[in-house]
C-alpha cells in the first residue's frame, strides 16, 4: 500500500457557532483514503462523521460553520481553500456523493434521466442528447430494468431501493475518483441493503474508485471496508484495517461498541454489555480524554492530557493512554 492517497485529511477542524457557544463538531481529524479502497468512518450520532464528509465536499454551510483549521488534500489541491466555483467543478465529477435518503436528494419535478444528464453536461461539456445516452447506460449499470423507458420516470414513480440506484447512477456518471457515501443504505430494508452494497462493491471494482463510507452500522463496516476510522466526540480514537479493528480493538470505546451490539450470528450473549452514560455535548467536551467519563479503564492521567493518536500496533493507531490489552 505505497500508492499516494487519493484524499488526505490533516488535522481538520470544522466548528459551528451556536447561541450557546462554539460546537467543535470535527476537532482535529486526520486520515487518508488510498486508491481503490473503501475507508469506513464509524461512530454514533454526533461524533462528527457526517460533518467530516460534508467538509470534504465543501457542503458545510458557513455560517454557522467555521473552517477552524486543517487541510483536505485531493489531487494536489487543498479543498478547504477552494472557492465555491472551483468546488462545483470537482463535486459530481471527481468527487461524488450519495446520501441516506434518496428522495430528499432527488428533484421531484425532473425525470431521473434529466438529473443524471445534468451533471454529465455540466462536467463533460457534451450535448444533452449524448448525456441522455450516458444516463441510460448508467441506469443499466446500476441494475434498473428497461432503462430506456425508466430514464423518463420521475423519482416518485420508483421504490426506495430504485431511487438509491438512481442516486448511485447520478453520482457515478462522471466516473469519480472518490465516492463519499453517507449512510447510503441506512434507510433501506435489509434485503434491499444487500442489493445496494453488492452493487456498490461491483461498481467500485469496475471503476477502480475509492469510497469514503460514513456509517453507524458495524456490520456494514465489517463487510465492505478495507480500513476503518472510529470517531468519538469530534476526534479519531482509532484507525486500523478492518481485520485488526474487529479482531483486536485497542480503544476501550471501540471494544465497548462491539460488545454492546446484539449479533444476529454466532453465540448469543446472555446480557449485553453497556457503555454507561451518554455522548458529551460538542459545546462542552470533558478535559483530557473525551471518553474518560464513560470509560472502564479511565485513571488520573486521562483527565489531564488529550491522548494523541499513536501507533498501538503495526498499522493500527489508537488515541488512548491505556489501550485494551495493555492494562
Amino acid at each position, binding site marked *: 500500500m505505497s500508492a499516494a492517497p487519493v484524499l488526505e485529511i490533516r488535522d481538520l477542524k470544522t466548528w459551528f457557532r451556536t447561541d450557546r457557544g462554539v460546537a467543535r463538531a470535527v476537532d482535529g481529524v486526520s486520515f487518508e483514503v488510498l486508491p481503490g479502497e473503501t475507508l469506513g468512518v464509524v461512530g454514533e*450520532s454526533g461524533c462528527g462523521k457526517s460533518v467530516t464528509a460534508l467538509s470534504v465536499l465543501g457542503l458545510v454551510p458557513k455560517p454557522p460553520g467555521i473552517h477552524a483549521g486543517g487541510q483536505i488534500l485531493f489531487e494536489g489541491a487543498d479543498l478547504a481553500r477552494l472557492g465555491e466555483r472551483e468546488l462545483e467543478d470537482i463535486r459530481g465529477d471527481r468527487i461524488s456523493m450519495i446520501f441516506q435518503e434518496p428522495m430528499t436528494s432527488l428533484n421531484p419535478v425532473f425525470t431521473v434521466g434529466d438529473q443524471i444528464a445534468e451533471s454529465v453536461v455540466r462536467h463533460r461539456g457534451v450535448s444533452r442528447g449524448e448525456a441522455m445516452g450516458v444516463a441510460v447506460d448508467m441506469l443499466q449499470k446500476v441494475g434498473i430494468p428497461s432503462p430506456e423507458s425508466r430514464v423518463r420516470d420521475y423519482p416518485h414513480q420508483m421504490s426506495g431501493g430504485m431511487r438509491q440506484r438512481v442516486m448511485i447512477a447520478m453520482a457515478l456518471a462522471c466516473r469519480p475518483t472518490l465516492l463519499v457515501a453517507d449512510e447510503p443504505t441506512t434507510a433501506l430494508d*435489509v434485503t434491499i441493503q444487500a442489493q445496494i452494497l453488492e452493487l456498490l462493491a461491483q461498481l467500485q471494482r469496475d471503476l477502480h474508485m475509492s469510497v469514503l463510507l460514513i456509517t453507524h452500522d458495524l456490520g456494514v463496516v465489517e463487510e465492505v*471496508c478495507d480500513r476503518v476510522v472510529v470517531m468519538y466526540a469530534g476526534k479519531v480514537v482509532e484507525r486500523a484495517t478492518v481485520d485488526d479493528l474487529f479482531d483486536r480493538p485497542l480503544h476501550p470505546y471501540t471494544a465497548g461498541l462491539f460488545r454492546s451490539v446484539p449479533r*444476529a450470528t454466532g453465540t448469543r450473549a446472555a446480557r449485553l454489555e453497556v457503555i454507561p452514560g451518554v455522548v458529551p455535548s460538542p459545546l462542552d467536551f470533558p478535559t483530557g480524554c473525551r471518553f474518560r467519563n464513560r470509560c472502564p479503564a479511565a485513571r488520573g492521567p486521562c483527565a489531564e492530557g488529550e491522548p494523541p493518536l499513536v501507533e498501538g500496533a503495526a498499522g493500527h493507531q489508537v488515541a488512548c493512554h491505556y489501550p485494551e490489552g495493555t492494562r
Partner: protein
Amino acid sequence: MSALPAAAPAPDLLEVQGLVKHFPIRRGLLMRVAGHVRAVDGVSFRVGAGETLGLVGESGCGKTTVGRTLLRLIDPTAGAALFEGRDLFTLPPAQMREARRALQIIFQDPYSSLNPRRTVAQTVGEALATHGIARGSELRDRVEKVIVQVGLQPLHMDRYPHEFSGGQRQRIGIARALALGPRFIVCDEAVSALDVSIQAQIINLLEELQAELGLSYLFIAHGLGVVRHISKRVAVMYLGRIVEEAETEELFRNPLHPYTRALLSAIPGGRRKGAARTRIVLPGDVPSPIHPPPGCHFHPRCAYARAECRAGPYPETVTLRGSSHRAACHFVTEDGGSPVLGDPPPG
C-alpha cells in the same frame, strides 16, 4: 392458519387468531373505495405469560399494524385477539378501557410520542389520573416509583422532554407504559432509533423489567440482531402474513422458508471483504400489498418457485412434527424438509 402445537411452553396470555386488516383506498370526488391495502392478511400467533415474541419483517409487511390493532389503535377487519381469554376486538368500551391497563405500547421515536409541554411526571402520571387510580401525593409517589424503576431519578420528574437525551426519553416512554401495571407491552421498534451504546442500555432495561414484573412483550422490529437477543420466539412476516415462526435459536439456525433464509443471510456483519460470498441477494422489491402476487406472495422473488407457487392457493402453514416450528411454504414438510436445504437453486 395452522394447527399450533399442543405443548405450549407457557400459558398463553395472548392468542391472536386470523387477524386481518385491510385499509380501504378511496379515490375521486365521491371517495369511492377503489381497492384495499391488505396490510395484515390472516395472522395467528400466541404469546405466553412472561415471554417475548419477536415480530420481524421489512417495511410494509404489516408488523406495525398487527401491534396497533391489538391495542385497538386501529380497528381490525376480521379475526380475534384473546387476551386472558377475552376477545379484545369485541370488548365493549368500558371493558376495553379496563383491558388497556394491562396492554401498553412503546413507540420508536420517543421524542414525537411525548408531549413537549408536559413534564415527565405529568406524562407518566396521566393514565393513572385518567383511570382514577391515584391522585395527589399518592399519584406522585407512584410516578416516582416507576421513574426510578426505569433508571431515571426523582429530580427528573418536573423536567420537560427536550431536556433529555434520546435514551432517557425512551426511558420516559417506558415509564409511561409501566405506570398502569401492564402485563403485556407492544414494543414497536422501541430501540431502533437509538445509537448502539444506548440501545444496549434500553434492551437490558426491558429485560430486567420483564424478569422483575413478569411482563410479556410483542417485540416488533426490523433489526434482527436485537430481535434475536431479546426474543424467546420469532415470527417472520412478509406481505401481511407470517411466513415462519420458531423458537429464536431454531429460527436463526435452521430457517426453512426461503424468505427467512434470505432475510437472515442479508444481515451485514460476520463476513469480511473478499470472503467467499454466501449471501443470498433477493431480486426485486417487495410487491405492493394492494395487489399481492397470486399464489405464494413471495414467489416472484423466490429462487425455488415452481408452477404451484405462482398460481393456486396461498401455501398452507406446516408445523414440524414434535416442534413448534412452522412455515408457510409448499415445499416445507412436517419432517423438516425445505427447499432451502437441498441443492442450490436453479440459475
